[in-house]
């Protein structure tokens, strides 16, 4: 065995649904192949940034909780996405911080408290073989990941060469990500088929609150709320191509937002499209989440994307002195201090608290 083949993780417990995901399978939609990929693409990108990987290297996407993995070799990893309690060999670890796990260490993720999906990025990325250019798992067509299926107990997932850039003790400081709201305002660009709807139908979409139903999954969010009126009473069009975030309205007049695992084509009119920067939080929207919509222009949406792209960059990383674990009033707390003493975070029961300090003396 080469040393690369000795680098792997062993799945102890997969939880209800854990999948290998990267940026998705691009380039084969005209052959009916779904894109798939991480639903909260920002969370995977931030995780990869923290562990020194390419932005969309393959990691694990865990829904709800219950994942436990064992590292075969010392491995730098980070947990991102939903707020989730995590431990390495029973010691709590914070989300959005890179850690070094020792050979044989067990990383355990509890149930998520807020949001729906947590991501585990590991230095080198998951190195299962690619299918049509991607490692992303698409369950409906049984493509990618491990034989096109969910991660199962006892699976061994190879990791790639970590290169030299993976370090522990980095913190991605993103205030927005710390709180996943229970009510989302989602920005949309109207069209491409908003002209199939009456003006009162468009007003209904923009003026109402919709609720994510439990008939939602990686293919899309099925929403409940006021019926959107079409011009002709019909909602079907000649089937054409859809995109990530297409809002289609089927015959019952209630919108469906298409997500990563969507089919490539669809036969319902699409009243609007969610802007790219607001897609990740939809991947964290559990049933019962309320959603309202605001229409913006394509130019505004593209400007937001440019800003977002600049935000998820190494300049947002704070170098921490290795986080330490201590007890405060019998609670176990992880504390991290930046190298220059400018930022400090404490991690208590799944939440990160930024703390300012007045005086700081580095330890020898």
């Amino acid at each position, binding site marked *: 065995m080469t040393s690369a083949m000795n680098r792997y993780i062993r799945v102890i417990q997969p939880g209800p649904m854990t999948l290998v995901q990267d940026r998705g399978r691009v380039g*084969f939609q005209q*052959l009916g192949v779904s894109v798939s990929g991480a639903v909260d693409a920002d969370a995977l990108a931030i995780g990869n940034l923290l562990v020194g990987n390419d932005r969309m290297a393959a990691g694990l996407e865990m829904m709800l909780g219950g994942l436990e993995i064992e590292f075969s070799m010392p491995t730098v990893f980070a947990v991102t996405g939903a707020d989730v309690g995590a431990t390495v060999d029973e010691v709590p670890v914070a989300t959005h911080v890179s850690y070094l796990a020792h050979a044989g260490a067990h990383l355990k993720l509890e149930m998520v408290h807020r949001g729906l999906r947590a991501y585990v990025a590991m230095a080198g990325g998951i190195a299962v073989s690619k299918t049509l250019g991607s490692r992303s798992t698409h369950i409906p*067509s*049984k493509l990618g990941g491990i034989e096109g299926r969910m991660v199962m107990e006892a699976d061994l997932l190879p990791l790639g060469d970590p290169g030299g850039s993976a370090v522990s003790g980095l913190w991605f400081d993103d205030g927005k990500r710390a709180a996943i709201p229970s009510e989302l305002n989602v920005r949309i660009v109207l069209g491409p088929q908003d002209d199939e709807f009456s003006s009162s139908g468009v007003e209904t979409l923009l003026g109402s609150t919709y609720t994510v139903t439990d008939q939602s999954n990686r293919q899309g969010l099925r929403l409940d709320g006021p019926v959107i009126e079409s011009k002709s009473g019909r909602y079907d069009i000649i*089937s*054409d191509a859809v995109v990530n975030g297409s809002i289609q309205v089927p015959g019952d007049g209630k919108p469906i937002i298409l997500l990563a695992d969507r089919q490539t084509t669809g036969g319902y009119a699409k009243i609007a499209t969610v802007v790219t920067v607001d897609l990740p939080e939809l991947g964290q929207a559990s049933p019962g989440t309320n959603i309202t919509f605001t229409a913006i222009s394509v130019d505004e949406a593209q400007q937001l994307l440019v800003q977002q792209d600049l935000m998820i960059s190494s300049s947002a990383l704070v170098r921490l002195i290795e986080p330490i674990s201590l007890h405060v009033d019998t609670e176990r707390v992880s504390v991290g201090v930046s190298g220059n003493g400018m930022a400090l975070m404490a991690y208590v029961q799944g939440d990160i608290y930024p703390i300012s300090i007045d005086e700081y003396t580095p330890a020898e």
Partner: protein
Amino acid sequence: MLEMTSIEGDANLYPRLVPAGDSAVVIELGAKIDPLINDQVYVLARSIENAKIEAISELVPTYRSVLVNYDPLIMRFSEISERLDKLIGDSSTPTAAETKDTKVIELSVVYGGDDGPDIDAVADHAGLSVQEVINIHSGVDYRVYMIGFSPGFPYLGGLDDRIAIPRLKTPRISVPAGSVGIAESQTGVYPNASPGGWQLIGRIAAKLFDEASPRPSLITPGSKVRFVPVKSHD
């Protein structure tokens, strides 16, 4: 020969280019299922591919539109619209040379029996013999309007109305891979085993989609399909 399913829509509207969010535009060339419009779709898709615009990640040609996925960090909406508008103008009238060298893909079909359990129902519905159903179904070349729904699933046009039949009242829980079916005025092939309500008249042995192949889909959009009756797949 081909059924023209016309929906409302003003022909003067087309072609039109509209945004599909911040990372795609759709170019609609018409509002009906029509072989001429579909020819234009593939001529335009080819000319966009040939233009090798760096920002474009992939195209999805369909019955009457081309979806263009692009990276707005490389090219903004106004700029890509301008580039595409030019290409639309240049390819609005496909020449005979551009459209006639369509590839015909032959698929060997075992009709009837266990491979096509609904062929008697189709024959009864049509008031024809089973052999006549086979002759009619295998007697024309079907246009591949697009591929969608699942990997390698072709939307075929050109079914003879005499053998059109509604879907099964209760869909099958599992239709075997390669099954050839009819639903209303459409015919198609299931690339993989899946639930389905089409009336099954036969089965092909060829694998329609193989993700390990450099050309993963046997049938490609814009080509034609011909069904060839065979006694068995041995």
